C-alpha cells in the first residue's frame, strides 16, 4: 500500500487492505434485488396504497415568465370529488420555501406565488378522489397572467434588465454567480506556449428520464401533529429534515419513508417539491394524499435538468507537445432556480485536467437564470461535461498539430508512479494506471485492425470512424463542494456520512438497515457481498431493509458514485464491533484469549486449531438470551448489533482564497471508451460497428453489476451525444415534453456487441481498495462518440463542436463541408 509523507494528505483510514484472498468481493454474483424486481414484486412509490387516499395533480404554468394576476379556483372546488384546491398563497400560509443549497438561497415555492418562472411550474394544486377528477379540476381553474419578458438564451441572459430579471430579490441581474478560479500560473504558461488550441464547445441540456417519475404519498396525523411521507427520493437521511422546515413542523414530526425508485440517475437526488405538495394537501384534507408526477410534469418541472453549457476553451502546449495549461470561459444555463448552486462545477474542477499532467488551469464560470426548469443532478453532475471538453480539446490539438491521438495521450498521462497526484485545483487523485487502461482498450478493440478496415472502407466511399476518449470518473464526493465555490460559503457542512445498522438475530442471520433507498443501483447486493465477506456468513442469510428517518441514522445515499465505497466503510466498522462482541462471548465460552480467535466460515475459531470453533449462530443465541452465563461487565450486555457511521475517507478543507479547493473528490476512477461508427454522409445517420469500454474502478465488488453501470451509462452517453436535448422555443415552451419527441435511445440504437474490460488499481484510502463506478459510461461515451464521428468525417474536414449530433445536424455539417 502507498504511504506518503506529503503533509497535505491525511493518513489513510483504510482497514481492509486490497489484495486479500476474498471469497465474495470480486465475484459476479447475480443481484439479490432482481428476483422480486424482475417478477414485479418490488414496491415502488405508486404501490403505496393507503386507505381513504386522495390523489393530487398540479396545474403547470403555460407561460415561461409571467406575473400571476389572479386565480379563480371556485369552479374547481365545486367539482364533485374535489377535496381541496390550493393556490400558492394558500400554501404559503402554512408552508415555507423549498430547501435550497445555494448561497444566497433562491426562493422556490412548491406552488408559485405572484410569479411563474418556467413552463410547468405549479400555480395551483388539487386533491381529489382520483387523479382523473383532479385533472378535470385543473381544467376548471382560471388564472390570469401578465406575461413578462422571456429569457431563453444563456448568453443574452447575462445582459437582461428590468422585467426580464427572473429573481429581482437577488439583484438586478440574471447572473446567479460569476466566479473566476485560477490555479497555478496560467498567464505564464500561455506566454511560454509553443501552440495554443482554441475551441468553442456546446453541451446540450438533457435529463435522466427515469422510467418512474417522482412521487410521494403523505399522511398527516392530526393527533400527533406528525407527517409520514413515502417518497422515492434519496438523501432523506441526510437533508430530508429540511422538508420539515419547509412544512413548518419540528424535524422529529416528519418521518420520511423510502420506497424503491424506478430509476434516478441523479434525478431523484433530493426530491422536495413533490413530497411537499403531497404533504400540504394531506394536512389540508386530513386524508392521505398521493402525488405522482406524470411524464409532462416530470419533463417540464422535475427540478433536475442536466448541465447546459457554452465553453470557450484554450489549451496551451509546449514544443514537446505536452499540455501545460488550460483556460475555459463557461456560461451555464441553470434555468429558473438554483438549488445546488454551482456544485456541478465543483464536480468539474475535481478532474478538470483529466488524466493528464497539466500544470495550471483557469476557469471563468458564469451561471445564469433563464426561464427553463432548473438544473439538478444527472449522472456525472457536471463532471461529464468537463470530460467532454478536455477530450475535445485533446482531439483538437491532435487534429491541428497532426499528432497521433494514442501517443499524445500516453505522453501526457499522469504516470502510474506519480500517485497520489495533486491536480492544480488542489484535488487529489488517489491512484491510477492510465496507460494500462488504454492498452487494454486498444487490444480489446483490435485498434490496428479497425484502422485498416477504415482505410478499406473509405476506398469504397464508406466513412468509418474510431473514437477514443480517456476520461476520469471521480467518485465519493465530499460535501465541501456544496459550498466551496460560493462567494460566501454559507452552510459550510463538511461531512457526507454513510451509516449502517446491522443486527444479528438469535439464529445468526443478519438484517442490514441501509440509510438510503434503492435507486436502480444494487445496494442490497453490495451490502450483502461486503457483509458476507467481512463476517464470513452466507449471503443467503442476509436480508436488507431501508431505514426511514424515524429509525435511521445519518446516511447521504447514492450520488457522486459514492455509495459502494461508503457502505463498505460503514459495514466494515459495524462488523468490527460485532466481531469484538462475538470474540468476547466466544473467548469466555471457549476459555480462549480473544487475540487468539478468528472468524472463519461463519464461526469463531481458535487460530491454528481446526475444529475448535463456535458458530456465529450459537454465539448469537448466547448473546441474545443467556446474559447470566457471562461476567457482569457492560461488554456482555444482551444483543448482537452495531450501528456505525462512516465519514469520507479522504477530504480536506479548501483554502480561504480558493486557490486550493482541498481534497474533495479523490477516489479517482478512469475509463477508456473506443466506439467504431459508420456515418452515412447522405443521411447523417450514425451506426455502431463496434464499442469497447475499459474501466478502472479500483477493486471490483461485482463485475456483473459494474458492467451494468457501464453499459447503462454508455447508453445514456449515446443519448446525450446523438439524440437527447430538451428543446425550448423562444417563448420558453418545452416542445418535446414526451418520449415521442424527446428521443431516448432504445436497444436498437446502442451497440449490440459492446465489450467491457476492467483494470483494477485499488485505492489506498478505501476499504478493500474499492472506487465508485456508478456514473459509468456517461462520463466517457459523449467525447468518444464526438471523436469517432469527427474521425469518420476527417476526409471531409468536418468538426463536431456540439452535441447532440443528430442526423439533421450532422448532415448539415457534411453539407457545409461538401460545399467548401
Amino acid at each position: 500500500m502507498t504511504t506518503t509523507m506529503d503533509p497535505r494528505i491525511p493518513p489513510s483510514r483504510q482497514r481492509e487492505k486490497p489484495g486479500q484472498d476474498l471469497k465474495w468481493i470480486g465475484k459476479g454474483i447475480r443481484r439479490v434485488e432482481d428476483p422480486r424486481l424482475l417478477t414485479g414484486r418490488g414496491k415502488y412509490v405508486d404501490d403505496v396504497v393507503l386507505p381513504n387516499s386522495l390523489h393530487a395533480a398540479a396545474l403547470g404554468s403555460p407561460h415561461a415568465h409571467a406575473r400571476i394576476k389572479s386565480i379563480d379556483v371556485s369552479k374547481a372546488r365545486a367539482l364533485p370529488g374535489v377535496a381541496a384546491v390550493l393556490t400558492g398563497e394558500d400554501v404559503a400560509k402554512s408552508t415555507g420555501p423549498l430547501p435550497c443549497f445555494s448561497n444566497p438561497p433562491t426562493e422556490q415555492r412548491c406552488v408559485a406565488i405572484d410569479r411563474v418562472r418556467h413552463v410547468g411550474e405549479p400555480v395551483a394544486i388539487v386533491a381529489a378522489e382520483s387523479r382523473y377528477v383532479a385533472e378535470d379540476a385543473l381544467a376548471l381553474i382560471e388564472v390570469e397572467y401578465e406575461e413578462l419578458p422571456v429569457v431563453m438564451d444563456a448568453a443574452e441572459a447575462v445582459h437582461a434588465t428590468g422585467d426580464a430579471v427572473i429573481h429581482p430579490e437577488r439583484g438586478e441581474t440574471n447572473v446567479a454567480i460569476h466566479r473566476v478560479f485560477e490555479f497555478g500560473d496560467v498567464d505564464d504558461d500561455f506566454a511560454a506556449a509553443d501552440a495554443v488550441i482554441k475551441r468553442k464547445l456546446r453541451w446540450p441540456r438533457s435529463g435522466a428520464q427515469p422510467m418512474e417519475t417522482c412521487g410521494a404519498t403523505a399522511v398527516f396525523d392530526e393527533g400527533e401533529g406528525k407527517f409520514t411521507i413515502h417518497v422515492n427520493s434519496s438523501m432523506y437521511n441526510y437533508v430530508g429534515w429540511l422538508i420539515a422546515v419547509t412544512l413548518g413542523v419540528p424535524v422529529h414530526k416528519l418521518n420520511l419513508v423510502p420506497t424503491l425508485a424506478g430509476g434516478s440517475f441523479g434525478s431523484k437526488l433530493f426530491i422536495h417539491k413533490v413530497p411537499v405538495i403531497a404533504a400540504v394537501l394531506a394536512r389540508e384534507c386530513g386524508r392521505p394524499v398521493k402525488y405522482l408526477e406524470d411524464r409532462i410534469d416530470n419533463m417540464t418541472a422535475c427540478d433536475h435538468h442536466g448541465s447546459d453549457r457554452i465553453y470557450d476553451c484554450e489549451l496551451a502546449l509546449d514544443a514537446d507537445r505536452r499540455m501545460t495549461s488550460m483556460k475555459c470561459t463557461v456560461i451555464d444555463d441553470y434555468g429558473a432556480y438554483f438549488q445546488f448552486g454551482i456544485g456541478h462545477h465543483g464536480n468539474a474542477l475535481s478532474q478538470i485536467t483529466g488524466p493528464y499532467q497539466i500544470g495550471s488551469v483557469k476557469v471563468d464560470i458564469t451561471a445564469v437564470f433563464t426561464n427553463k426548469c432548473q438544473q439538478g443532478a444527472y449522472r456525472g453532475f457536471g463532471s461529464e461535461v468537463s470530460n467532454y471538453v478536455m477530450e475535445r480539446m485533446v482531439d483538437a490539438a491532435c487534429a491541428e498539430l497532426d499528432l497521433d491521438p494514442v501517443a499524445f495521450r500516453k505522453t501526457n498521462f499522469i504516470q502510474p508512479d506519480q500517485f497520489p497526484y495533486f491536480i492544480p485545483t488542489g484535488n487529489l487523485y488517489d491512484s491510477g494506471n492510465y496507460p494500462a487502461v488504454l492498452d487494454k482498450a486498444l487490444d480489446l478493440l483490435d485498434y490496428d485492425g479497425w484502422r485498416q478496415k477504415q482505410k478499406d472502407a473509405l476506398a469504397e466511399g464508406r466513412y468509418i470512424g474510431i473514437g477514443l476518449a480517456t476520461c476520469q470518473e471521480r467518485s465519493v464526493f465530499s460535501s465541501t463542494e456544496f459550498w466551496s465555490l460560493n462567494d460566501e460559503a454559507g452552510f459550510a457542512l463538511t461531512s457526507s456520512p454513510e451509516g449502517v445498522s446491522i443486527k444479528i438475530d438469535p439464529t445468526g442471520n443478519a438484517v442490514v438497515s441501509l440509510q438510503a433507498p434503492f435507486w436502480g443501483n444494487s445496494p442490497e447486493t453490495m451490502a450483502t457481498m461486503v457483509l458476507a465477506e467481512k463476517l464470513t456468513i452466507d449471503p443467503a442469510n442476509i436480508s436488507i431493509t431501508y431505514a426511514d428517518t424515524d429509525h435511521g441514522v445519518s446516511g447521504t445515499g447514492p450520488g457522486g458514485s459514492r455509495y459502494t465505497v461508503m457502505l463498505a466503510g460503514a459495514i466494515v466498522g459495524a462488523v468490527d464491533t460485532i466481531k469484538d462482541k462475538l470474540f468476547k462471548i466466544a473467548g469466555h465460552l471457549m476459555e480462549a484469549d480473544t487475540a487468539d480467535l478468528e472468524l472463519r466460515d461463519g464461526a469463531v475459531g481458535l487460530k491454528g486449531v481446526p475444529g475448535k470453533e463456535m458458530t456465529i449462530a450459537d454465539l448469537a443465541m448466547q448473546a441474545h438470551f443467556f446474559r447470566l452465563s457471562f461476567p457482569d461487565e457492560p461488554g456482555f450486555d444482551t444483543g448482537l448489533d452495531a450501528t456505525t457511521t462512516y465519514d469520507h475517507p479522504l477530504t480536506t478543507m479548501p483554502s480561504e482564497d480558493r486557490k486550493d479547493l482541498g481534497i474533495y473528490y479523490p477516489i479517482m476512477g478512469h475509463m477508456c471508451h473506443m466506439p467504431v461508427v459508420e456515418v452515412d454522409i447522405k443521411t447523417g445517420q450514425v451506426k455502431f460497428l463496434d464499442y469497447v469500454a475499459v474501466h478502472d474502478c479500483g477493486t471490483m465488488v461485482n463485475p456483473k453489476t459494474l458492467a451494468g453501470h457501464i453499459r447503462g451509462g454508455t447508453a445514456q452517453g449515446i443519448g446525450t451525444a446523438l439524440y437527447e436535448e430538451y428543446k425550448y422555443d423562444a417563448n420558453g415552451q418545452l416542445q418535446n415534453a414526451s418520449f415521442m419527441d424527446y428521443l431516448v435511445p432504445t436497444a436498437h440504437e446502442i451497440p449490440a456487441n459492446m465489450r467491457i474490460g476492467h483494470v483494477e488499481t485499488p485505492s489506498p484510502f478505501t476499504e478493500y481498495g474499492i472506487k465508485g463506478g456508478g456514473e459509468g459510461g456517461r462520463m466517457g461515451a459523449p467525447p468518444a462518440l464526438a471523436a469517432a464521428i469527427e474521425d469518420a468525417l476527417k476526409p471531409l474536414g468536418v468538426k463536431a463542436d456540439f452535441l447532440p449530433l443528430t442526423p439533421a445536424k450532422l448532415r448539415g455539417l457534411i453539407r457545409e463541408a461538401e460545399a467548401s
Partner: protein
Amino acid sequence: MKPSAFEYVRATSVDDAISALSQHGDEARLLAGGQSLIAMMNTRLAEPKVLVDIGRLSDLSYIRVDGDALSIGALTTHNTVLQSAEVAAHCPLVSAAYANVAHHTVRNRGTLGGNLCHNDPASEMPLVASLLDAELVLRGSGGERRVAAEDFFVDTFHTAAHADEILTEIRFARQGAGEGWAFEVVSQLKGDYAIVAAGCRFAMVDGVCRGVRLGFVGAGPAIKRVAAAETALEGQPVNGATIAAVAEAAVGAVDPHADMHADVQYKLDLVQALSERVLKQAASRAV
C-alpha cells in the same frame, strides 16, 4: 395525463358499432388498438364523449388472398401483418415497410385499420396503401363502399370515412412477379415515425419502367405519391441519368416542413438520397 370522462360502448358486431356511431355522430370515436387515440385522450388532445370499442370484433382480423388483391381485415394487428408469410409473398412492400413501423409493443396492439384511419402524416402505412393502389372497404348505415387510397387520405388526420362508417378491410393490389420495389426509412430511433421515408414500385417491361408508383412520407403535409417523380420514370430505364432526373423531380415537387428534429434542407436531402436508394434497390429486384 388522464382522459376526461367518456362513455364506453363495447361493440359486439360491425353493425353494432355502426349503430353506435350513427347514434352519437361526431361525439363518438372508434377504439381499435388505441395506440394513438389513447395517448391523445390522456393528454386531452382528443376528448371523445363516446368511445366505441371494436377491439373484440375478431372477424375483422384476417389476411387472405382474394383474386388480384391481398385483403387484410382492418383490425389485424401490425405484428400479425409483419409476420405474415402471405403478406411477404404477395405484398413484400408491406412487409418491408412494416419492419420500421412502430415499436414491438405498439405493433402488438396497434391495427392496420386504426393506423390508416388516423392518417398521421408521419405514418408509413398510408403511403404504402397509396403505392399499392389499395382500396379501403367502408361500412356504414348507408351500406358498404370502396374508396381508393388516393381518395381516402384527404388531409392530415383526415380521411374520406364518414362519421358513421367503419373501415372493415384493406385490399392491397398484389405485387406482380418480378416487380421492382423498395421502401426506405430515415428515422432517428428505429420504430419512431419517419423523418422521411420513400417507397416505390414498378414493373420492368422490355427494360423500361411501367406503372411507376413513387412517394414519400415527411415530404409535405398531405403529400404521398409524387406524380412528377413517377412521370419522370414512367417508360424509362433505371440508370444514372434517370435516377438523377427522378430525384430532381421529387425534390422539386415536395414541400417538407421544418420540425424540431429536422430542417427543410435536411428533408430535401433525404428526399434526394432516398429517391436514389429506392430506385437502385427496386431496379436490383426487378426482373
